[in-house]
């Protein structure tokens, strides 16, 4: 109850600051849509030259991309930790966060969240809906339940990996470029992973499990049973990676000494 109240207060504060630059707020909406549209254009143009991609039809590939947008949008809403090093370590904001009685990670997440990114959920659902209607494919009640489980798992995987990476800043205030590298690896998960080489498939499954954010659960929700076991593993993998992320964060916080003078 206490956390929900805090969340609402943060949210109100957020709206006030965002609406100050109203033009930029809507520009953000527009560019998010544009960004999602660009990837769709790519898929559509590609399929005007071929009928299948390693056995996947146009509608299936679009469905996988649409599904990927949902966990990705939720992740971008709450784990907007890109400038954590700059803002919290170098400028010393973390010292303020640490003096307060709410868990430091929760505070940082609420201070940096961007709720307008949730628009991606709507786009993702629309894209999935469109491709399902093209394929005349209908979900059962169980599929809906799995969908929620998979999305939560996907967000947890993304979140866990990024929390762990952000925690590096707690040990050393020098800049690292691992986050953008990770962001680009994440892009591999939104296409059918069986078109990559074996090594990449292995990495995307067991080391940086981005395939669980997009491809594995999406292929199950499409009615393909080839990767069924992997799809069911999604929430478990999510739980493991998220726990590891939070543990590294807590360890980092104990280790943190501040960068200032």
């Amino acid at each position, binding site marked *: 109850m206490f956390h929900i109240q805090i969340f609402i207060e943060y949210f109100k504060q957020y709206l006030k600051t965002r609406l100050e*630059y109203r*033009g*930029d707020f*809507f*520009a*953000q909406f*527009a*560019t998010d849509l*544009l*960004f999602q549209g*660009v990837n769709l*254009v*790519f898929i559509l*143009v*590609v399929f*005007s*030259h*071929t009928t*299948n*991609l*390693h056995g996947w039809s146009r509608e299936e590939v679009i469905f996988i991309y649409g599904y990927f947008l949902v966990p990705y949008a939720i992740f971008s809403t709450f784990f907007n930790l890109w400038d954590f090093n700059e803002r919290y370590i170098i400028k010393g904001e973390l010292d303020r966060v640490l003096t307060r009685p709410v868990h430091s990670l929760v505070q940082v997440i609420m201070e940096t969240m961007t709720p307008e990114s949730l628009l991606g959920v709507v786009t993702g659902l629309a894209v999935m809906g469109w491709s399902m209607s093209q394929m005349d494919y209908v979900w059962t009640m169980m599929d809906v339940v799995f969908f929620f489980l998979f999305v939560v798992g996907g967000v947890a995987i993304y979140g866990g990996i990024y929390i762990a990476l952000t925690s590096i800043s707690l040990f050393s205030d020098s*800049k690292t*470029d*691992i986050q*953008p*590298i990770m962001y*680009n*690896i994440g*892009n*591999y998960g939104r*296409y059918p992973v069986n*078109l*990559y*080489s074996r090594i*990449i498939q292995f990495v995307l499954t067991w080391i940086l499990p981005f395939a669980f954010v997009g491809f594995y659960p999406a292929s199950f929700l499409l009615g393909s049973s080839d990767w069924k076991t992997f799809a069911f593993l999604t929430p478990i993998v999510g739980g493991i990676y998220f726990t590891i992320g939070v543990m590294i964060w807590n360890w980092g916080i104990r280790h943190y000494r501040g960068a200032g003078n």
Partner: protein
Amino acid sequence: MLKMYLSLIRIRFLMMLAYRVNYYSGIVIYSLNIGVYYFLWMAIYGDGQSLGGLTPGQMATYIAIAWMSRAFYFNNLDREIAQEIRDGTVAIELIRPYHYLMVKLFQGFGEGLFRLLLFSLPGMVLVSLIFPISLPGMMDSSWFYFSLSLLGGFLINAQLNILTGLLAFFILNNQGLIRAKRVLVDLLSGLTLPIHFYPEWAQGILSFLPFQAISYSPNMILIGGWSGHEIGQALLIQGIWVILLCLPIQLLWTRARKTLIVQGG
């Protein structure tokens, strides 16, 4: 005058050299992107030997060249100009005895040169070890036309960046616009999709836009996808765009100096 601009290139080059470690991660990122598109395109080819007039080998080379050239023409001039307008340093720049926009252009060139030598070259070596890429021989004339075209692409992209940056004079917070422009340039310049893969109607529209001159033209020249006549035409179009784009920049620049509002300070 020229000497001053040359030292601008040199200074930016040295500045980038001081932070060179940051660029090794860039090579990894670009290689990752080349990887995604390589596997995607090879899956698209399947067992086919030709698609849109390109062989799988040419396509692989196209992807690698496109990303490694992007390292050269890409810069943050839009963001830098917008930032200087927002924090007011542009006012100081305006009273200095040089042309502010030319200074920016040359700084961008110094940055591009740095990345070309310390990023694209080693990156290209790395990538050609992983993927089957075939480049023309050292003495082949296509290298000359490619360099010309690459320079043209750099100029056009820099001009578009300057235009977007200058809009900060009129729209006080233009970050969204900058991001949108970046996404559009990547899609429409031929970086991710060669222009001739688009449907006919879209190709018609794109041929009237400056974007295809940024990436598509130099790439097609280097992979040997064009005849001598087509190369000449592409270079001519680039030249025309470079001149045409000067007009809106000059217009915005004159109007901007009249209506300058420095936020705060």
